[in-house]
């Protein structure tokens, strides 16, 4: 039985945006026998590849740095203290 082929949806620079099966291909979509894969999760993510001249080029998208957790209670207390200073009103806050 023939393996299903794939159709690639590419970005302007050849970046692979998504893949569907050949029967759902739109005009102009490259048809390929297989999708890029590797050993790590990043290498198995097709969006980390570009399709250039019929070949896959591994070009991983930089991952954003994880955000620092926000100390919301600390921020709220700081806001309350600021308000207290600016208004001259004594607003009690929690004691650390």
């Amino acid at each position, binding site marked *: 039985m023939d393996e299903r082929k*794939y159709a690639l949806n590419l*970005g302007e620079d050849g970046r692979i*945006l*998504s893949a569907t099966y050949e029967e759902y291909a739109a005009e102009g*979509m490259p048809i390929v026998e297989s999708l890029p894969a590797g050993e790590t999760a990043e290498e198995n993510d097709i*969006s980390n590849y570009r399709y250039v001249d019929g070949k896959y080029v591994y070009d991983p*998208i930089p991952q954003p740095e994880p955000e620092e957790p926000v100390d919301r209670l600390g921020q709220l207390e700081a806001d309350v203290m600021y308000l207290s200073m600016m208004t001259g009103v004594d607003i009690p806050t929690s004691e650390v």
Partner: protein
Amino acid sequence: MIEITNFDGTRVEKVLTEEEQGMMIEEVWENANPTSSFAAQTLPVDVSDATLVMIDFAFATTDRSTRYVHTGIVGAFNIFYFPTSLMGNGLVGMACRGLTPRIGNRNIEFRDGLLKGANQTTPTTNNTYCIPMRIYKCKL
């Protein structure tokens, strides 16, 4: 073409008219690699003869068993929100496939995936959430 059995036992074949067919649903796209990130993009999908489009979303690349099927109107901007969880404090986390992706006659525009935790004030871009799995067009 369907086969109809008359009361007298005779059988005839009949071509149903569009009105007699009722609603038709046809799969027009399937994600061939749902474990991959899905960034903002325009999918070339011809839904010009359809009224509604149903998009089957998986919660995340790492959780494809949790699904949400969203119905959109062809030719309109549609809102796709995917509530993630109801936290014990009553706040709701939320994942969505951007705001107001437009379903055109021959393409569907998707924005980046967004994720907002229950205690966050603003969502962050995360294309491993709200992964389109299948798209169906519906003709009423």
